[in-house]
């Protein structure tokens, strides 16, 4: 009996010693479940029916296409259709040497992302046009080649070499920023929320501002930046985004803003007795009601 106890004791001690030599305890798993993902749903804003209430007039809006402008005409179809609805014609400038000649009978001039620089003489022609009462729209965004600043200096406007982003509140991507802060202007009339898709900030008299959660890529800090400016004489409009003009990105109040821009270019405004063009969900004009 004593021997078997001794045997058992030695066995237990040796076995335990070995165990303790290698093992100091037991791993207790810390249960970690995979994250819940089924509730993730991010859908960008959709187009909703829009009624374009506009005035009418006649005249010509000239679009620059002579400085290797980085846009396709199709991108501006919504804006062009609004201009046409206001009774104005649209022409494209193909030859920069005929800039002055073409501006003489134009009411407004639109310059989108010129990849080729404006010469000093050309910039002076445009300045002369604006001083004579013409309207000028300057547009560019950070995803397009642009030498727009070769034209802007004379108007107190400068496009910064940055892009704006908001990681907190956006329309499905950090660079799709909401804009809800508007200065009082005909251009911001009836706007409560617009969305820009790829915008840079602009130096000048801001009329649309980001919220304080929006960053400028070059400054790296959040702040109140302006991607839309209007010169003090209200004749030169600077837009830091082009995409919002394009289908299917004319969502939220972008459509109202596009109409306001068309009003600006044509110097018309909606009066009660004027035309109302209903725009269906595809953005096409469907009927005009007197």
């Amino acid at each position, binding site marked *: 009996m004593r021997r078997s106890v001794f045997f058992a004791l030695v066995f237990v001690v*040796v076995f335990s010693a070995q165990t303790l030599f290698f093992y100091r305890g037991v791993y207790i798993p810390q249960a970690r479940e995979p994250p819940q993902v089924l509730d993730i749903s991010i859908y960008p804003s959709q187009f909703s029916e829009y009624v374009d209430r506009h005035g009418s007039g006649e005249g010509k809006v000239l679009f620059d296409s002579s400085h290797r402008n980085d846009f396709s005409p199709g991108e501006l179809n919504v804006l062009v259709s609004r201009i046409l609805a206001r009774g104005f014609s649209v022409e494209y400038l193909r030859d920069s040497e005929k800039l002055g000649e073409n501006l003489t009978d134009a009411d407004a001039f639109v310059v989108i992302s010129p990849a080729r620089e404006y010469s000093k003489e050309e910039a002076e022609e445009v300045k002369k046009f604006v001083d004579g009462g013409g309207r000028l729209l300057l547009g560019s965004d950070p995803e397009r080649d642009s030498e727009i600043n070769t034209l802007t200096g004379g108007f107190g406007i400068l496009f910064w070499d940055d892009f704006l982003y908001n990681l907190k509140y956006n329309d499905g991507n950090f660079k799709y920023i909401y804009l809800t802060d508007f200065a009082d202007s005909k251009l911001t009339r009836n706007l409560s929320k617009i969305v820009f898709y790829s915008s840079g900030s602009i130096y000048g008299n801001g009329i649309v501002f980001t919220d304080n959660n929006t960053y400028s890529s070059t400054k790296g800090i959040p702040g109140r930046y302006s991607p839309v400016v209007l010169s003090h004489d209200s004749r030169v409009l600077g837009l830091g985004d082009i995409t919002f003009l394009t289908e299917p990105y004319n969502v939220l109040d972008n459509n109202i803003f596009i109409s306001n821009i068309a009003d600006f270019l044509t110097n018309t405004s909606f009066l009660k007795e004027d035309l109302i063009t209903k725009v269906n969900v595809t953005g096409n004009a469907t009927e005009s009601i007197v």
Partner: protein
Amino acid sequence: MELGSIQRSAGRLAESYVFLFILAMIIAIVLFRVLVVVPSVGVIIIDSDIMTDKVKDDIVDMLRYAGEEKDIKGVVLSINSPGGEVSRIEEIYLEILKLRNKKPVVASIDGIGLSGGYYISAAANLIYAKPSSQVGNIGVVSVLPEPVRIDRERVTTGPYKTTGRSQKYYVGEVEMVKEAFLRAVISQRGDRLKIDKENLSKAEIYLGIEGMRIGLVDRIGTRSDALEGAADLARIANYGIVDVNKKMNITLHSFPQLLSSNESTPVNYYRYVEFYEGLD
């Protein structure tokens, strides 16, 4: 009783106790080896991007091997990866979560644990990095599908048959993939994370020391420190080391592929693109 007889009896008794002692020891040692194995820590080296099924399958096979082998009580993932394709990364991540329900898993970010390379690290119990290792880059990169068009030469049964989605909605889809990535990191790092979701989504790359400050890394150390860490979690000492890659004869090889606008089907990547561009 005579003295001589007493001495003989005592001698026999002593002999029999010595014999019993030796016998008990031998049986205890042999039984220990049979019943309780000598523990080891398995090392899995992931030093590649994870762009192909071959690489993904190799990694998953190694994780399963480490999970099934009785002597492997803890696992070290030695990571030097810029990430890879989303669904492959997710599969590895989920396999690691399964493994750590059985055994502790410790990630050691040797050079880079970026994007998907960090995603899989996040599934580990602990993350080690060297002071100048690169970690983070949490986000997704993708290529937009072609704009929806119809084609005279090709018959399709729906407007998105060839593109999958409109460009606009595809961006939202990529954002959902990013959100899943963020949640994967946040759910595993928990309270250790000292950076908010908004800043994490900037997809910045951090040095190991910065990573530790913001909670993307638990400890500064080398692979041998990670081995110690895995052993501590597994509660083992005097352990051996099993080179799982060698054991399974697996060398991860993947060739850099640049994001190409010619890709016919858009694919999402959890990967650090500049890494590839630097190789051009």
